[in-house]
């Protein structure tokens, strides 16, 4: 936050705030994208989506714990402070792939967790849709909100039971730890815009995932059918297409998107059991600002609000409007809802009861 300390916002400070907003904006965009996918396909407002983000983060925790599962070996050559032979923890992985390879794998546990998280999250998503949400299509929206809210509490408490209430630090691979001088790359004075590597990685990753989801919907037959179903579910069903099955898969996909967003977020913020709820409230705000049911709107609003939040945290702004960084998103959401009720890019007829 070096830029923020200047009394007058400079170009450097401006760019710094934009890049600062990108990582949080990426998380918002990914969660909001999943929320919108579920809402657009199944018409359900999923209050448990934050919990899916959180479970994704704990997939990373689980995998790194599995990888570092160790046995105790007594090392005769060294002694501990009492003079007894030293005991060292040796991961089982050393025996399986060798010490060097194992160290690399453990170091890269977080990115590797993506591979682990995708199938897990897909399964969880499909299970939730088939087991629970399917029975709520015909019920009132209030019931859908309530049942997913209850589910969110349950998932959160389960994680708390198994992993405890404290945040679990999960570091990024060595290569991406620390920061680099982003400003110097753009031709500004050195040491003005310092940016952590991992946040840039996160942004790039989010861009790839978002691009992937859009390409999937745009360029595959499956995606085309899903989009048709989003526009008019009944007609697609009458054409003899099993749209329910595809929508279930979309729920799994949305869960996977939230999950990998959670996996990659672990080095930025150590995962704890209530991180999902913290993000969920804001993600709703994002979806509402972007426009219920609009995928592009959700992504745009995610980045926009992330950057806006980061601007509101500048001390130049805080001097004028103290505390604005805490409430800026809510204020924006309220203004947007009252002036453009459909949000920035909302479609007509969505949720207008």
């Amino acid at each position, binding site marked *: 936050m070096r830029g923020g300390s200047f009394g007058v916002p400079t170009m450097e400070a401006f760019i710094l705030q934009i890049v600062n907003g990108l990582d949080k904006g990426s998380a918002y965009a990914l969660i909001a994208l999943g929320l919108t996918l579920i809402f657009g396909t199944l018409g359900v407002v999923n209050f448990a989506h934050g919990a899916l983000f959180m479970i994704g983060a704990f997939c990373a925790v689980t995998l790194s714990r599995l990888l570092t599962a160790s046995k105790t070996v007594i090392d005769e050559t060294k002694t501990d402070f009492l003079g007894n032979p030293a005991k060292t923890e040796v991961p089982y992985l050393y025996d399986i792939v060798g010490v060097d390879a194992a160290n690399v794998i453990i170091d890269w546990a977080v990115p590797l967790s993506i591979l682990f998280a995708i199938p897990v999250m897909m399964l969880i998503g499909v299970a939730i849709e088939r087991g629970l949400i399917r029975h709520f299509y015909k019920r009132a929206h209030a019931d859908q909100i*309530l049942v997913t809210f209850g589910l969110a509490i*349950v998932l959160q*408490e*389960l994680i708390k039971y198994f992993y405890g209430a404290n945040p679990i630090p999960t570091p990024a691979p060595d290569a991406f730890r620390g920061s680099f001088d982003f400003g110097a790359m753009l031709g500004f004075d050195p040491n003005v815009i310092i940016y952590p590597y991992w946040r840039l990685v996160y942004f790039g990753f989010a861009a790839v995932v978002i691009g992937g989801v859009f390409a999937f919907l745009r360029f595959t037959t499956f995606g085309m059918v899903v989009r048709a179903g989003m526009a008019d579910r009944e007609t697609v069903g009458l054409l003899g297409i099993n749209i329910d099955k595809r929508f279930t898969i979309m729920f799994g996909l949305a869960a996977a998107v939230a999950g990998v967003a959670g996996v990659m977020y672990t080095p930025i913020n150590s995962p704890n059991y209530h991180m999902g709820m913290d993000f969920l409230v804001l993600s709703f705000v994002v979806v509402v600002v972007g426009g219920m049911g609009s995928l592009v709107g959700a992504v745009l609003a995610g980045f926009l609000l992330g950057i806006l939040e980061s601007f509101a945290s500048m001390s130049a702004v805080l001097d004028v409007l103290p*505390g604005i960084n805490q409430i800026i998103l809510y204020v924006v959401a*309220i203004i947007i809802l009252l002036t453009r009720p459909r949000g920035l890019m909302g479609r007509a007829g969505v949720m207008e009861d």
Partner: protein
Amino acid sequence: MLGLNSRDLQLLLLVIALTAFAPFLLNPFPVDSSLAQFNGGYPDLMQRFVIFGIFAIGFNILFGLTGYLSFGHAAFLGAGSYAAIWMMKLLTMNIIPAVTLSIIVAGLFSLAVGYISLRRSGIYFSILTLAFAQMSYSLAYSVLTPITGGETGLQPKISDPRILDGPLAAGASPRASLFGLEMSSSYELALGGWVFTFNVGYYIAAILMVISFYVAIRIFRSPFGLMLRAVKSNQNRLGYTGVSSKPYTLAAFVISGMYAGLAGGLLVAMDSQAGAERMFWTASGEVVLMTILGGAGTLIGPVLGAGLIKYLENIISKINETVLTGWFSWMPEGLQDAVVAMVYPFVGKGWHLTLGLMFMMVVIFLPGGLMEGLSRIGNLFSRKPKTSTDADDGAANSAPKAAE
């Protein structure tokens, strides 16, 4: 009598009897028995029963009648708490100004929030109220610290001005009272192995809850209440008949906000402290749970829901591993460990897990809450078909009929 028909009068009398004899009813086990931990008849918990009962009754006037699901009602409870604590700091430790101001402040606050939020309906309304509540919470935690005390919250201090009370006697600490009758004072009645506690604060809160309940009955039975049900059943049709629903929903919103303010003021009257966590959105979620669990749209359901949740919260979170082991000690060794291990996640610190599961079960299987469950059980035993005017007068399916 009192403008009620006989059924409602019975209901009111039932509530009066339940609250008046709560110290007996909630203490069914002798103090020394191993079941004494299930006694709920201690002042702190009984106060919470009735205070959250008020909160839930008010929430039900909005959600049960109009169907507008607010996820931000804790903000009004919090606002009421802050108003009450300031009265205690500035004016007097007497609870009357504190509670009065808390109702007024919460009413004004809910008027402002309702005026904006009610421009949208459905899910948007829920999100708007949630956004307002979270905003209030964030503000109370950060910028408004001079008014709200931030993280530490507010308590009456000895150094506060309190212009209506004289200076405190040396060594005395400020205690909330009603004309000298201290909220925390109680009378203990020992009968055989039983000890029953009659607490001043509880009875004051209970009287206010009975009044709140009476007002709620009158609202439910009034033409105004009928209008609110019409909003729930078909807002479009109401619009086509030339009625603007906005003043009605706004009035319901403000009334429920004032109920929340009363509850917030009473919380302060009982424990003399206010903090931002009362505004957190989980607190808003809790009142939704109470209302749904008891039965949204029914008169007595929310009170039962509030009582049940607060009771379980206090009792279940007290159960720890030792207690569990004691319970299942009659089982063979291995089985005992297995059962304890299975039950353990759901008790003690795992109370929220139980709450979440219970909530899901109710929403899935009993959308009408406990009241629907009771009437279903009632139907099992009585052959004659129930008419919609019976028992669960509000529960979803009968509401459209009432509206037409």
